């Protein structure tokens, strides 16, 4: 297991390098001069040339790449063309907001999805099974923006139970330490603010978690059905084990192997693709941040945003692979 982990982590290095290179080249392949963009339409030719030189854009691409890599190693992602702030300072609060939201959404999706799938498989062709599969089908088919708006209308406006938008109560702003507000409020020991953060997370968390939940429930059900037909489950029953033990111990561990893959993929998607949810719930996440950067052609920000999301995806895949090896002893490379 240890040597597998080391090898698998070692394999990350070329993947990450390749990824940085592709993102770097892609941005440069887009036509248009960044200096022109910064200075605007009215800028003189001389000023543009000067800025181009100042930005290092006259250097050959490999020199630029080396400089860029040097910056990355020092945590320097460059500067935003729009705000003139270092991107690393701007990006983290947005990323933290997205991570927090995706985390809550995945917790909801995994806990409900996996259990619903298990019980559906256990009680195959029962009313519970039909009900869960119908809800899962609706969950997959439902447009997230519509569902988010319905949540806001019924839960926030009609029933006035939870806040509609944002991460915090604007009248009592949270002092950011890590920018993960759940963590920050706990560190500060401010319990009422923690409750406030949880309240803000519930609606967008459910909206974002519904599709993964439905996918996970269906995947778990079909995987469990497959496993429960197998010979070793018959062996377990022949030993006189109780059904809960047969289902939750003997079947689940085997059935989780494909489910873990799906959970990993969904988690990666949530981190990058939560723009709809973020927009509806006024969530200052990374999706909104990149969307704004694209609108204003803020290339360094786009580049950094893509890089960060891609890196997260790679790391989630690493975790999935390590989980595989932890679940399935047959996996040894």
């Amino acid at each position, binding site marked *: 297991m240890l040597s597998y982990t080391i090898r698998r982590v070692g394999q990350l290095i070329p993947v990450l390098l390749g990824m940085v290179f592709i993102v770097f080249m892609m941005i440069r392949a887009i036509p248009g001069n960044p200096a022109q963009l910064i200075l605007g339409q009215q800028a003189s030719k001389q000023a543009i040339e000067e800025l181009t030189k100042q930005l290092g854009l006259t250097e050959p691409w490999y020199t630029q790449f080396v400089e860029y890599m040097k910056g990355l190693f020092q945590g320097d992602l460059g500067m935003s063309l729009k705000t003139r702030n270092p991107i690393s300072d701007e990006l983290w609060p947005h990323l933290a907001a997205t991570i927090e939201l995706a985390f809550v959404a995945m917790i909801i999706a995994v806990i409900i999805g996996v259990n619903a799938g298990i019980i559906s498989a256990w009680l195959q062709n029962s009313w519970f099974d039909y009900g869960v599969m119908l809800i899962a089908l609706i969950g997959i088919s439902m447009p997230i923006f519509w569902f988010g708006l319905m949540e806001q209308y019924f839960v926030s406006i009609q029933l006035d139970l939870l806040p509609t938008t944002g991460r915090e109560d604007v009248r009592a702003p949270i002092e950011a330490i890590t920018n993960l507000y759940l963590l920050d409020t706990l560190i500060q020991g401010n319990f009422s603010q923690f409750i406030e953060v949880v309240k803000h997370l519930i609606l967008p968390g459910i909206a974002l978690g519904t599709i993964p939940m439905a996918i996970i429930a269906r995947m778990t059900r079909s995987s469990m059905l497959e496993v429960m037909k*197998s010979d070793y489950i*018959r*062996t377990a029953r022949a*030993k006189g084990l109780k059904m809960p033990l047969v289902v939750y111990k003997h079947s689940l561990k085997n059935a989780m192997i494909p489910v873990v893959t799906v959970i990993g993929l969904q988690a990666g998607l949530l981190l990058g693709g939560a723009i709809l949810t973020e927009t509806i719930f006024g969530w200052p996440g990374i999706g909104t941040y990149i969307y704004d950067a694209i609108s204003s052609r803020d290339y360094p920000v786009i580049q950094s945003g893509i890089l960060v999301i891609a890196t997260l995806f790679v790391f989630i895949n690493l975790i999935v692979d390590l989980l595989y090896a932890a679940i399935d002893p047959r996996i040894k490379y």
Partner: protein
Amino acid sequence: MSSPVLNVHRLKTAFATDDGEVTVVNDIDFHVNAGEVLGIVGESGCGKSVTSLSVMGLLPANGKVHGDIVFKGENLARASDQKMRSIRGNEIAMIFQEPMTSLNPVFTIGSQLIEALKIHKKMSKKQAQQLAIAKLKEVGLPRAEELMKDFPHQLSGGMRQRVMIAMAMMCSPQLLIADEPTTALDVTIQAQILELMTKLNSETDTAIMMITHDLGVVAEMCQRVVVMYAGKIVEEADVVSLFKNPKHPYTVGLIRSVPDMRGKKERLYSIPGNVPKPGSIQTGCQFAPRCEHAMERCFQETPELTSLAEAQKVRCWLYVESKGEGAVDRTIS
């Protein structure tokens, strides 16, 4: 003669399918005496495995058992789930055909071995492990201590079947049901496994119900034999009478289709036709369409199981009036 440990009376097992109820095991009677080895023989699809699963109470959800299955005074056909669980793996254990898939791939051999002890004998983990190591040694596995920590995929098929046998013997059951335990193994390993089972049978008081289509296995191990065809018992005899003096044309056919080592290079006999599909039951004797001695009567009336000699019963019209002086060719070629 010792008393029967298992007494099956008028057992009828049917499955509810889309095409209505299909009877797979039809009205069978047999018993297993304490400490003996009973063979149940027949082609694939004749109801042997369903009989064993009926005894274990491990039929799929659409299966239904009628009749009595009396084990030590308890009617298993009407026992509660809880009662069945306390017997399964404890007093009646089972070994399956496929050692490659009958062990759970994600748990260690040790943890799978001690499970039954923990639930049935309420043993501590440590005690159970010691007993498991002793059992592994008993079934002839080397380096038992290390094996406990191994996973099933690290073992060969023969080793896995030995583990399965050790697992079945953990609680010292009174009855061991072996469903084609050697079919999936190669010939040398088959012999070793049979030898092991014979040894366990003689050293403990565990009776074995050996389900097989292999007459070689029967000759090697069993004291009494029940021959099944299309869900019915067609002949029941002690092993010597069965091979020396088979009565039912089906039994004769089975014995004739065993290759003979003593020269005579002729084409190996095979019984013409196939086992009828469960549910396509015709009137009269089920074997009649394939029988070379079939008479008019065989297609119209179903014969009863008739006692011929001591401990030999046959279900065939040939023996009803003439009491054993039938037209069946008794030479075993």
